[in-house]
């Protein structure tokens, strides 16, 4: 019977939310607009600009003050790779602005006098690159990159040619000394530590962000959902209905979590993939390195277990905090202000681990840090690296314990008149103020 009433209430919640224009707009229409604008339009626009920039880069202007072997080789090199060249009057080297105007190109190379002689004598030399910027768009930044790379490629070409002429291996000229880096962490040797540090840095930033977005969403929904009962003046009625009060709470929790998961799945992942695409950040770990690095984590059973436990516990804890705030809030505005004022600062805890070095700490200190909710979610991966299983399990279980304690407190409040008198007390205070 309790089960049936629970689902009756879930049905009512879903109907109300689906028909509430404020929620539809805030949760679906606005994010949809943001995604369409950023992902489709701006992404498309970016694509167009880069295409246009590449097209414009296909023709370059060149002032050759050297007129010798290697400057001619540079010109041939450019032509061989399909770049069209407009050779300009050397007199224009003193008036670059006019040179670019006359040439009507985005890129101008000026090869100085003595260029070839320097190379012949093995002295470093340079080519001046002038880029005409107009619209200051992202597309134009790729032109700068393109112009620079052409010179770099010619440099590689020349050094390889000279090396061959002298009988020196090209690989030696390009990089006489290479590096092989390893990280040694608690009896484990990990090659290419850059991969690990990159992963840790990104996970320290993005994992908390994703988790917290989900929790903030659910918290907002649950707190608003309870406050709405008061605003719609159904709260007192609900307390007298033949429905288990915890079923009401459970139904609101379920609906809030469901909607948050849907929201995060659709929009959170789409948004993050856009961010990664635009910024160009990726974990460049190469084909061989990835299995080894990640195997440290995947094969670490303790890490997987404790992360799952911790995440569940964190979600439970944050939702319980939101529930308590919702019960005390008089209306939706107060509820949302409470969430912002209390949950918001808690977010800071998620970034604590970025700045704390746990490797030098004693076990007792690490255990204490593992007790800090929210922060311990990010600590777990660091604890796994230093192999502190005890602290990992403390971190894994502590959030669940906190959530369970709060749940018991909430159950006591909900099943007593406190759930009503807390509201009533404030109401009476307001009435006295009005008199």
């Amino acid at each position: 019977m309790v089960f049936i009433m629970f689902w009756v209430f879930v049905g009512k919640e879903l109907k109300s939310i689906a028909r509430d224009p404020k929620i539809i707009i805030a949760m679906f229409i606005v994010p949809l607009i943001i995604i369409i604008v950023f992902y489709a339009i701006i992404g498309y626009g970016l694509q167009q600009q880069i295409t246009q920039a590449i097209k414009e880069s296909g023709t370059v202007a060149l002032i050759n003050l050297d007129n010798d072997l290697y400057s001619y080789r540079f010109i041939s090199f450019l032509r061989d790779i399909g770049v069209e060249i407009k050779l300009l009057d050397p007199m224009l080297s003193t008036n670059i602005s006019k040179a670019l105007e006359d040439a009507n190109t985005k890129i101008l190379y000026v090869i100085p006098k003595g260029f070839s002689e320097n190379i012949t004598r093995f002295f470093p030399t340079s080519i001046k690159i002038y880029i005409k910027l107009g619209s200051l768009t992202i597309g134009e930044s790729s032109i700068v990159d393109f112009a620079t790379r052409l010179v770099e490629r010619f440099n590689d070409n020349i050094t390889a040619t000279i090396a061959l002429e002298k009988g020196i291996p090209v690989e030696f000229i390009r990089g006489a000394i290479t590096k092989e880096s390893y990280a040694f962490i608690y009896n484990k040797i990990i090659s290419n530590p850059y991969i690990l540090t990159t992963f840790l840095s990104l996970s320290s930033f993005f994992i908390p962000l994703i988790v917290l977005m989900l929790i903030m969403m659910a918290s907002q929904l649950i707190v608003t959902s309870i406050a709405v009962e008061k605003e719609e003046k159904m709260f007192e009625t609900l307390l007298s209905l033949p429905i288990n009060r915890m079923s009401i709470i459970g139904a609101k929790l379920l609906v809030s979590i469901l909607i948050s998961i849907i929201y995060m799945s659709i929009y959170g992942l789409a948004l993050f993939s856009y961010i990664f695409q635009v910024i160009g950040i990726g974990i460049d770990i190469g084909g061989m390195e990835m299995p080894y690095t990640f195997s440290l984590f995947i094969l670490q059973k303790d890490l997987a277990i404790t992360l799952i436990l911790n995440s569940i516990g964190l979600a439970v804890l944050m939702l319980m905090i939101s529930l308590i705030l919702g019960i005390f809030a008089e209306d939706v505005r107060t509820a949302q202000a409470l969430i912002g004022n209390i949950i918001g600062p808690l977010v800071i805890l998620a970034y604590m681990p970025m700045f704390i070095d746990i490797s030098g700490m004693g076990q007792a200190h690490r255990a204490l840090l593992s007790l800090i909710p929210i922060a311990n979610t990010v600590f777990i991966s660091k604890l796994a690296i230093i192999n502190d299983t005890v602290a990992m399990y403390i971190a894994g279980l502590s959030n669940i314990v906190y959530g369970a304690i709060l749940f018991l407190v909430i159950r006591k409040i909900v099943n007593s008149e406190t759930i009503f008198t807390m509201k009533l007390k404030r109401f009476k205070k307001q009435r006295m103020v009005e008199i």
Partner: protein
Amino acid sequence: MMSKDIVYVKDLVKIYPNGIKGADGVSFNIKEGEVFGLIGPNGAGKTTILRVIATVLQPTSGEVMVSGYDVVKEANMVRKIISYLPEDAGAYKYLTGLEFLEFIAKLYSHRETSIEKIIEEGIKISGLGERLKEKIKSYSKGMLRRLLVARTLMVNPVLAILDEPTSGLDVVNAIQVRNSIKIYAKEKNVTVLMSSHNMLEVEYLCDRVGIIYKGKMLAIGEPKELKESYEAQNLEEVFVKLIGRAL
């Protein structure tokens, strides 16, 4: 034949956390099928008493039973047999009137046939007709109150608790609500406990009244008896005389 007591209140005291006394040793009982009115000025304690009986608040001391169930120890059983309409009640504005009635009906019954009958009863009591298919947010105050009275009475409770059922309504809607209460109470033999400021309404609807002032029950009786005892033209005069004595 002696009617059994549906409501039994003995020495009810309710003190709020801030020290205010909502009820101060109140005792009364209500017989099956009776319409009992609680009357008194603002802040007298009427709503407090109704809330205790409706299991929204818990008594500080005293005994309160509804159909033999203790409102504290057996609150869940009490909630199954009562239906409570607060003075300041609302409804879910994004549901239609019909959906709202269906939602309430499903909380009181789980059999399809019973649910349908309850909803039909709700439609009849509300008198809102086709407007029930519209969202509640489009309803006027009077329509909303009629819907709420309907949802309170349609479940055929053992005890219906109505706090100022016609509060804020115009004459037409107030008459409609009063008639619904009267007809339903008599037809279905539902016991009704209501509070009101409107003495005419109380005299029209109630079989017996209890006069409350500053948390204390000053008098209980049939309106006619009270007027005769206190040589008053109406219940207002009875009230004024009782307060004079209380002071």
